[in-house]
């Protein structure tokens, strides 16, 4: 009998608002420690929180993008626990009345499309940062803790998926799709390595159709790859335990990227009892229909909608996914070129192929305008430049040498489609290769290719190969 993994993902997203969630301190990363702090985010006696309206609007935006129901009435709670980087020793968060509930996200994964339920998305505040000084920088061998509260109070949205993700690759695809949504909304820079987007996972195994097993929380995965690897490892570990007739312990485990394993933290002395209660410093949030609709009207095109549009425009599914996941500049280039009349399918292939590759080699390159790309594609279609020459034209365009035709002309890459001009070259080639002509006429058809090659070489590759073929055929006929 097999075991079936059940995976739920918990995501924390730091919002890139101008100011913090409950005070006016700047949201700014990499500043000297404790320079963006005030009485409120330091939890000084007497200070009070006042919520950032934009952060709430952005949370609603996220909720709408994830097809959530937006609760008309929601409340901030205090989550009580003592930790050195939590200034008030409680975190303002949401509990039984979050802003967003019951949504879903459609994901196109490696094995097809699937839907992940969204349990909730709520607002909270981030903690400060602890630096553990001592041998190896590890918590349990540290001799001192240095505390920086610049991050304390940065708006943090927590998104909790339903536990209905079946495999690690799907978990990864979900995480990537969610990141695309967040980036598209423009509410966070969503950098995994810097922690502005953080993934935790809950994993358990069960018999197909059977009751849910004991779940383990896995933390500390700083890339999509480590998310997938950690889940793979953890599922394997649990399967081995269960197959050996042993039990899975409910616990939190840390992913160790170098060792490639998840490791249990020492068992907690105190079982967590967060003593949630409504924060009496704050009044309820009411998102009425008018407010919700105003926010909905501002929603940009979401990744799934974008992919559907690309497919409608005739782009193949594989390219549509790649294009959708591309940088906004590249997607805009596609849109503008198509608007300027270029064929969507070809445009998408060029944008995700040659142009992306060129940018990867050199980030400084200047993207062409949509009209310029359209012009290049027209030159190819009309046979003015060959497909291979077009790559060289593009290189010139990216290097800032000018528009497509300008570059093609300057670099002498225009195809010779003039049959008079080509006829001369063809005649010369035939005159210079009597043997080949003889062999062809004797029935050795493949010699034609050699003669075409000679014409191409004589024209520096610029001859229109179809025309060359026709002219040779006429003369050898």
């Amino acid at each position, binding site marked *: 009998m097999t075991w079936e993994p059940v995976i739920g993902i918990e995501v924390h997203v730091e919002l890139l*608002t*101008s*100011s913090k969630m409950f*005070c*006016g*301190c*700047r949201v700014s990363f990499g500043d*000297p*420690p*404790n*320079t*963006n*702090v*005030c*009485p409120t985010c*330091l939890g000084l006696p007497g200070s009070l929180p*006042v*919520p*950032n*309206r*934009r*952060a*709430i609007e952005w949370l609603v935006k996220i909720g709408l993008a994830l097809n959530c129901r937006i609760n008309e009435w929601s*409340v901030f709670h205090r989550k*009580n626990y*003592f*930790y*050195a980087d939590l200034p008030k*020793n409680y975190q303002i968060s949401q509990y039984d009345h979050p802003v967003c509930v019951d949504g879903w996200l459609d994901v196109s994964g490696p094995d097809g499309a699937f839907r992940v339920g969204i349990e909730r998305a709520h607002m909270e505040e981030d903690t400060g940062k*602890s*630096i*553990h000084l*001592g041998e190896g920088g590890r*918590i*349990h061998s*540290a*001799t*001192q*803790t*240095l*505390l*920086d*509260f610049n991050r304390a109070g940065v708006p943090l949205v927590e998104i909790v998926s339903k536990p209905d993700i079946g495999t690690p690759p799907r978990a990864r695809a979900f995480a990537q799709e969610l990141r695309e949504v967040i980036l598209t909304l423009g509410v966070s820079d969503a950098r995994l390595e810097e922690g502005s987007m953080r993934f935790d996972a809950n994993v358990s195994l069960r018999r197909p159709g059977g009751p849910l097993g004991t779940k383990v929380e896995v933390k500390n995965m700083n890339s999509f790859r480590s998310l997938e690897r950690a889940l793979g490892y953890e599922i394997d570990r649990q399967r081995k335990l269960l197959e050996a007739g042993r039990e899975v312990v409910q616990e939190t485990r840390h992913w160790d990227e170098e060792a490639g394993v998840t490791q249990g*933290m*020492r*068992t*907690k*002395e*105190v079982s967590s*009892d967060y*003593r949630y209660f*409504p924060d009496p410093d*704050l*009044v*309820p*949030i*009411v998102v009425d229909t008018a407010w919700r609709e105003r926010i909905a009207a501002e929603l940009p095109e979401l990744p799934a909608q974008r992919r559907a549009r690309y497919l409608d425009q005739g782009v193949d599914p594989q390219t549509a996914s790649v294009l959708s996941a591309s940088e906004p500049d590249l997607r805009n280039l596609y849109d503008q070129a198509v608007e300027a009349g270029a064929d969507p399918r070809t445009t998408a292939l060029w944008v995700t192929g040659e142009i992306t590759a060129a940018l990867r080699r050199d980030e400084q390159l200047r993207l062409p305008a949509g009209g310029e790309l359209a012009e290049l594609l027209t030159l190819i279609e009309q046979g003015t430049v060959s497909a291979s020459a077009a790559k060289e034209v593009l290189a010139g365009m990216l290097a800032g040498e000018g528009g497509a035709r300008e570059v093609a002309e300057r670099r002498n890459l225009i195809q010779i489609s003039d049959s008079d001009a080509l006829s001369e070259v063809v005649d010369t080639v035939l005159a210079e290769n009597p043997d080949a002509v003889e062999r062809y006429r004797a029935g050795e058809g493949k010699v034609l290719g050699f003669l075409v090659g000679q014409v191409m070489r004589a024209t520096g590759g610029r001859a229109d190969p179809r025309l060359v073929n026709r002219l040779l055929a006429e003369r050898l006929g």
Partner: protein
Amino acid sequence: MSAFMPIDIDIVHVARLARIDLHPDELESYRAQLGVILEHAAKVQAYDTSGVEPISHPLGFTNAFREDEPAPSLPRDEVLSAAPEARDGYFVAPPTMETE
């Protein structure tokens, strides 16, 4: 809610949740005092409150927000001068244990 709840107080657990390191004799004395107070407080349980919404803000208004505009932060020297220990722009605390 009609039945009174028996008052049993795991004072060690409560003191740990509240992060107050009390001596065993102090704990026992607080346990006894809390018992007396809670017995009185438990009178709230005798009231029929079915259908009553717990109160939030006495004046009942909602949506108190600030606009997303940065305001000046405190000078760091002023912030750190109040700290029991500080160094290189950081607050300094003893080591954090994983079990916390």
